[in-house]
C-alpha cells in the first residue's frame, strides 16, 4: 500500500523525524481558514500517489487566505498523470505546509535489498531531483549501507552514510536521528520503502523531511489495524477495484487491449501464459493470477471478471496444480458456467499437476476436454478469438 505524503508524514512525526508544520485539507475553504489562523508563507501540495505532481501544477505557494483559496481551487480536481499511470489520478485533497527557507536538499531512503537480504539505506547530497538521474549523473554521491538486522540501527550507520556521501556539515547533528527514524518506521509499520526527497536543511540549520514516500507491505498490514482506514481512503484504479471486488489481490489482475482472456495460477505461470499468447500471434485481454490454493468460488468470480470486464473473445485457463488443486479449479469452472448469467465465450482449458485426474474427470463430466500443453492451449485460444495479429 502506497501512502499519501500527509500520511507518510504522520508516520514520520511518530518516529521523531521533523516535518514542516501543516494541515491536511479537503477543501479550498479549509485551506483559507487554516492560513487565516496561521499567518505566514505556505505551500499548497496536491495529495496524490502518482509522481511528477510539481511539473503538473500540483504544488503552489500562498501567503494569504485568499491566495490559499485560489491555489487550492486550481489544484483540487486536477488529473495528474505519468508514464506509470497513464489514466491519471484526480486530486481530492491538499497538504498545506510551512514554506521552508531551504539551504540544501539531500536524499535519504530505506528499502529491502534482495541480493544481500538486508534493509538498504541510501543517502545522497543531491536531493529534490529524480534519484535515478542522480544515479546516472553522480553515482559516486550515493552512499549505501546494508543493515545487519541482528544489530539493527546504530548511530554509526548515520554518521558513516553522512561522511561517505559528503553530506553538508549542517546535516550532521540531526542526520543519525533521521536514519534512526526511517529504520524504526520501516520495521515498526512494515514498510517496503521509505523515501525522503528532499531532506531539507534550512538556512537556520534545521533539518526537515519535506516530502514523504512510504510503501507499506500489504502482508504486514494486519499488524496495524489503524491502516485499514487509510487503505479505504486511498485511490484504487479501475483494475485494482475490480480485482478487489473479485476477491483477488489488487495486483493480480490487469487489463490490456487484446482479445484473448487469460487466467493462470501463480504469477510466473500467468506471465508465461501471456508470453505464450504473444508467441502464438495473439494479444491478451488481461493478466490474471488466481494465486495459490484457489477455491471454486474464486474461480467463478475470476471467470465473470474476465467475461464481463475485458474485451476477451476467448478464454485460456492455464492451471498447473500445486497448492491449487486441479479438482477445485475444475469444480469452479463447471460451477461458473452453470451459475453465471454472464455472456459465454469459448474456453480453452489446460489442467495438470496435483489432483489432475479428478479435475479432468469433473471437466469431462461437464463436456469439456482440456488441452495438453500451454503452447497448444495458447494457439487454440488465439484461433478461437479470431484475433491473429
Amino acid at each position, binding site marked *: 500500500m502506497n501512502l499519501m505524503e500527509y500520511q507518510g508524514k504522520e508516520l514520520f512525526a511518530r518516529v521523531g523525524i521533523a516535518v514542516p508544520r501543516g494541515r491536511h485539507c479537503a477543501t479550498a475553504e479549509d485551506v483559507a481558514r487554516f492560513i487565516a489562523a496561521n499567518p505566514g508563507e505556505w505551500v499548497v501540495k496536491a495529495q496524490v500517489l502518482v509522481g511528477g505532481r510539481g511539473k503538473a501544477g500540483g504544488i503552489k505557494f500562498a501567503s494569504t487566505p485568499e491566495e490559499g483559496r485560489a491555489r487550492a481551487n486550481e489544484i483540487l480536481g486536477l488529473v495528474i498523470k505519468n508514464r506509470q499511470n497513464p489514466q491519471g489520478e484526480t486530486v481530492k485533497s491538499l497538504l498545506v505546509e510551512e514554506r521552508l527557507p531551504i539551504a540544501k536538499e539531500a536524499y535519504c531512503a530505506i528499502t*529491502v535489498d*534482495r541480493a544481500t537480504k*538486508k534493509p538498504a539505506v541510501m543517502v545522497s547530497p543531491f536531493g529534490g531531483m529524480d534519484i535515478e538521474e542522480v544515479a546516472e549523473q553522480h553515482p559516486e554521491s550515493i552512499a549505501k549501507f546494508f543493515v545487519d538486522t541482528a544489530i539493527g540501527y546504530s548511530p554509526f550507520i548515520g554518521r558513516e552514510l553522512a561522511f561517505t556521501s559528503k553530506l553538508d556539515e549542517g546535516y550532521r547533528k540531526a542526520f543519525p536521528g533521521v536514519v534512526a527514524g526511517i529504520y524504526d518506521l520501516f520495521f515498526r509499520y512494515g514498510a517496503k520503502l521509505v523515501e525522503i526527497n528532499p531532506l531539507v536543511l534550512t538556512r537556520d540549520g534545521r533539518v526537515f523531511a519535506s516530502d514523504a514516500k512510504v510503501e507499506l507491505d500489504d502482508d504486514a498490514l494486519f499488524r496495524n489495524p489503524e491502516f485499514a482506514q487509510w487503505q479505504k481512503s486511498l485511490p484504487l484504479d479501475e483494475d485494482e477495484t475490480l480485482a478487489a471486488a473479485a476477491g483477488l489481490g489488487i495486483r493480480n489482475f490487469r487489463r490490456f487491449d487484446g482479445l484473448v482472456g487469460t487466467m493462470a495460477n*501463480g504469477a510466473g*505461470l500467468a506471465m*508465461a501464459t501471456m508470453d505464450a499468447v504473444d508467441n502464438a500471434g495473439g494479444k491478451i485481454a488481461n*493478466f490474471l493470477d488466481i494465486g495459490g490454493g484457489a477455491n471454486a468460488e474464486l474461480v467463478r468470480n475470476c471467470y465473470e471478471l474476465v467475461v464481463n470486464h475485458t474485451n476477451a473473445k476467448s478464454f485460456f485457463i492455464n492451471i498447473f496444480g*500445486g497448492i491449487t488443486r486441479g479438482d477445485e479449479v475444475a469444480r469452479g469452472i463447471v460451477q461458473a458456467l452453470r451459475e453465471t448469467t454472464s455472456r459465454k465465450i469459448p474456453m480453452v482449458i489446460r489442467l495438470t499437476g496435483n489432483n489432475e485426474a479428478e479435475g479432468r474427470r469433473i471437466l469431462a463430466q461437464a463436456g469439456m476436454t482440456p488441452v495438453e500443453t500451454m503452447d497448444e492451449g495458447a494457439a487454440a485460444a488465439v484461433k478461437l478469438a479470431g484475433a491473429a495479429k
Partner: protein
Amino acid sequence: MSIFLDKNSKVIVQGITGAEGSYHTGRMLDYGTQIVGGVTPGKGGQTTGRGLPVFDTVKQAVEATGATHTCIFVPPPFVADALFEAYEAGIGMAVCITEGVPVHDVLRVVGATAGMRIIGPNCPGLISPGKASVGIMPGHVFQEGSVGVMSRSGTLTYEVVDLLTRAGMGQSTCVGVGGDPIIGTTFVDCLREFANDSQTKALVLCGEIGGSDEEEAAAFIAAHLAAMPIVAFIGGRNAPPGKSLGHAGAIISGAFGTPQSKIAAFQEAGVPVADRPSEIPRLLAQRLRETGVD
C-alpha cells in the same frame, strides 16, 4: 547425490494438523519422503491420520525423531516464530511454503539464523526426484536424472519440469526459490550447491522480471560454472510495469530488473535464453551436445 534433500533427510511438518499441512504431508509421504512427524502446539501426543507423531515443540520433535528438515505450513503471522523455533532446535533446512509473510519477518529471520538454510517463503518447495519431496510440488511430473532446476515461480517450475521429463531429461534437484522480495536461498545460493553436486550435469534456471537475481546468477555462472550446460528462461516479458512510488529499489540493484538486462547478462555468460518454456529442452540438448556432456 542431489542438493538440499535426499533419501536420508528426515522431515517434520510445522502446522501438520492444518488443512494444507495435512493434505501435503500425505502427498509427500506418498512420494516416499521420510516424514518423521509434525508439530502443532497443544496437540503433542496425538497421531495423524497417516500415523505420524505430533509434538508440541520442534525441540521435542527433533529430540524424538532426529529430524533434519522442516516444512512450514503455518499461517503468515506465525512463520517467523516457526522458523526461529526450527533454528533453535537445530534444524538445518527449512522449507517455507506459506505465502504472504511480512517481508520484515523474513529480513529478521534471515539475519539471525546463520547456518540454517531457508527455502522460500512463498515457494513450492524442493524435490529430489526419486528420493524425496518437501513442499507442494506435483510429484508425478518429475523424473530422476541429472538436470538441476531452479525457479522463482511455482507453477512455472512444474511447466518447465513437465517439458523436461517429456523430453527424457530427468532432474537431480528442483528448487522453487520463492517469489517474495526477500528469500532465504537465491539462485546464486543454489548455483553454489549445484556446482558441487556430482549428480547434476546441467542446469535450467527460470527467472522473472524484477530484482537482480538473474544478473547475479549470470555473473556467478561466468565466473564459476562456464563449463556447465545451462539454459535460462525469463518470465513476464509482456508483463505490465509495476506501479511504484519511489525508485530506491532500482538504484540499490543498479537499475537492473528489465527482461532486456537479464537476457543480456545470460547471453554474456554464454547461457542461451529460451523464448518460451517449450524451447528449453531443445536448447539444453544442444548445449549438452556442444559441451560434450551428453
